[in-house]
């Protein structure tokens, strides 16, 4: 089984490194096929491991001693247990689809090979993140995905906005990573080890305050990676990257790493329900907050990005309230339908020559039927309609919130569900149905290549059926994770399900009804609420004015006054002094023997004077 583990882990990096050799060369289709094959092999290995773990066995290997300094000993170890294997399968499955899809999507890009190199490197980092058996390995993977995310958001680095967004994402993540590092330091300080099993075994002995701080710091790290408020702005800007990247990294895998961390560290968070409640509240807030921004946005990819944010909020609610398996379950189903949604959006973008404004589309159904169907499936799943995947997982989260007695949270999520349904179908309606606006603007949409569509079908299939695995998923993951006890009456649960479904359906119905008749009037854009939402609650502006500008001027001050006047001047002075003495001393080297002899005598005199007047300390 260890062999499969190593294959699953290292196949992507092999692909990445080999492909990197061709990074500067013109497009080679075999590069895409090669990396896709390796990722597929990784997926197969993960499936075999899943099957193996299903028989109650855990694969735990130690590749080598990695860091051992003083009391610190960190092996390069990997573990495949119920949680990581779920993540592995999800990651590799989505990655395989995205890789195949990208062969078609990146077809005309001049940096085709480089793209695949980065993408495979990302998969490798993600595998390290989920498979590591200690916090340091997780952190390495954490940084690795951050790096690859930077490289892929800024993939079209010649575009200023893309490189800006890449840097923004990277810097925001660094801020959060500081929190995570502090958490790791606290753990090591108090426990003396960073191995999961040792940490979780000993965490109960610690002072509750220390555990609280650990929990808070780790959650700060998770907040950055999963783009929770107030560090959420980078995710929407990250949509500058190629669409497969958005699908893989900014919907299915990397942004869920924060949730994974909370789930993984569940044994810490069960000790500190207060922090958990805070996480849940923040999650619920983000769920509504992001969904509201998605309501009005006109950018195809940003809508889906806000939706991702909102769904991440749902996951955090579940994780914060201790329902780890539900969080993980939603993570998995969300990965399927959200990446499907993104990849479908990629098709639409291609068809519309990279036009992203959904108000300029409309009526694309006739031109691209398969994509329309796939995206509709994904949207229905996202909205949470029975029997699609989103229904099961999202409904469970609402149930958890209600069960916990946090009716306010439940209500927020309930509203969020309605909004989700509305904006998903607003998107579908505006893009695929209604008036054919694009004809007027001179677009000539065309459907993507058939193999691209075929590559998406597994995701569509899973988006439909994944929900039915709920029971077995529950049994499987709770072997490792803390179980969540529902104390809710069955009838109440049923009512809740109906209520949620009703709000989702009414959201859909409202969207369909409204946009079938040409949508809202232009007047709505005059409303204060609309302006607030379209400007993302003015938060980017606030960051710009409140943080960036003062920081820039502060940096400028330091640059002009401290750096230029003190640091540079000092360096210049040293250089100038040396240069000046050199310039002066150059005259000594006149090449004239007589003057050289004179200098020699002068040197002798100095030495003699030293010999006479200098008395070393005895």
């Amino acid at each position, binding site marked *: 089984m260890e062999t499969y583990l190593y294959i699953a882990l290292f196949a992507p990096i092999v692909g990445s490194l080999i492909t990197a050799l061709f990074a500067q060369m013109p497009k080679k289709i075999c590069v895409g096929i090669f990396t896709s094959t390796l990722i597929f092999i990784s997926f197969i290995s993960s499936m075999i491991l899943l099957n193996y773990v299903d028989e109650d066995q855990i694969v735990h290997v130690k590749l080598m001693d990695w860091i051992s300094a003083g009391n610190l000993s960190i092996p390069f170890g990997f573990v495949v247990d119920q949680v990581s294997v779920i993540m592995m399968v999800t990651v590799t499955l989505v990655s395989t689809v995205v890789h195949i899809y990208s062969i078609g999507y990146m077809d005309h890009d001049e940096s085709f090979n480089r793209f695949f190199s980065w993408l495979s490197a990302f998969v490798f980092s993600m595998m390290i993140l989920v498979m590591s058996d200690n916090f340091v390995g997780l952190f390495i993977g954490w940084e690795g995905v951050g790096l690859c995310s930077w490289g892929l958001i800024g993939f079209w680095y010649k575009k200023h906005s893309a490189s800006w967004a890449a840097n923004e994402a990277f810097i925001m993540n660094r801020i959060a990573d500081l929190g995570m590092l502090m958490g790791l330091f606290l753990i090591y300080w108090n426990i003396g080890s960073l191995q999961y099993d040792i940490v979780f075994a000993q965490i109960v002995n610690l002072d509750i305050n220390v555990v609280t701080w650990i929990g808070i710091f780790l959650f700060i790290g998770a907040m950055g990676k999963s783009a929770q408020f107030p560090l959420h702005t980078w995710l929407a800007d990250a949509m500058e990257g190629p669409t497969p990247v958005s699908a893989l990294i900014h919907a299915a895998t990397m942004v869920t790493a924060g949730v994974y961390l909370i789930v993984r560290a569940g044994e810490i968070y069960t000790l500190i329900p207060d922090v958990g409640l805070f996480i849940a509240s923040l999650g619920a807030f983000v769920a509504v907050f992001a969904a509201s921004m998605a309501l009005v946005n006109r950018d195809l990819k940003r809508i889906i990005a806000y939706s991702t944010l909102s769904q991440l909020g749902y996951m955090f609610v579940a994780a914060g309230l201790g329902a780890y398996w539900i969080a993980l379950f939603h993570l998995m189903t969300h990965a399927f339908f959200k990446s499907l949604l993104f990849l479908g959006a990629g098709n639409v973008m291609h068809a519309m020559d990279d036009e992203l404004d959904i108000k300029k589309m409309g009526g694309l159904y006739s031109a691209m039927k398969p994509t329309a169907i796939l995206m509709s499936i994904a949207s229905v799943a996202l909205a949470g309609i029975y029997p699609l995947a989103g229904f099961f997982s999202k409904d469970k989260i609402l149930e958890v919130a209600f069960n916990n007695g946090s009716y306010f949270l439940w209500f927020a999520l309930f509203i969020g569900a309605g909004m989700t349904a509305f904006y998903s179908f607003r998107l579908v309606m505006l893009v695929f149905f209604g008036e054919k606006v694009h004809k007027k603007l001179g677009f000539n949409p065309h459907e993507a290549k058939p193999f691209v569509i075929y590559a998406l079908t597994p995701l569509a299939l899973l988006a439909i059926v994944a929900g039915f695995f709920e029971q077995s998923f529950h049994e499987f993951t709770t072997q490792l994770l803390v179980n969540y006890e529902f104390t809710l009456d069955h009838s109440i649960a049923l009512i809740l399900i109906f209520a949620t479904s009703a709000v989702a359906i009414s959201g859909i119905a409202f969207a369909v009804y409204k946009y079938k008749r040409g949508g809202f009037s232009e007047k709505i854009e005059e409303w204060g609420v609309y302006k607030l939402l379209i400007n993302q609650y003015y938060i980017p502006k606030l960051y710009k004015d409140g943080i960036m500008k003062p920081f820039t001027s502060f940096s400028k001050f330091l640059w002009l006054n401290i750096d230029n006047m003190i640091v540079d001047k000092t360096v210049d002075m040293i250089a100038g002094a040396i240069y000046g003495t050199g310039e002066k001393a150059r005259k000594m080297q006149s*090449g*004239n*023997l*007589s003057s050289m*002899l*004179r200098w020699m*005598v002068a040197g002798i005199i100095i030495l003699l004077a030293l010999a006479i007047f200098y008395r070393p300390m005895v």
Partner: protein
Amino acid sequence: MIGLTHYLVLSAILFAIGLVGVMKRKNLLMLFFSTEILLNAVNIGFVAIGHYYGDLSGQMFAFFIIAVAASEIAVGLGLLVLWYKKTGSTDLDSLSMMKG
């Protein structure tokens, strides 16, 4: 009585004269003369110290210095002749090819 110090001071004076010559003269031949003076000044010092210590090593060193001086003159004069043939001058200032 004449002591060691007398000899050493004499040696120092001669050495200083040699140094002056080295610095002052521009004629290469004179430069060789001045080096001879320097070497001889040192020789006196060696022999005097050897004498007052009752050790023959001083004289030995003086011998070797004489040998070195002789070979120096042989080679140096040869080079000087070559130089003179090439440039027609023994002026020190004509030797400035080492200028950086």
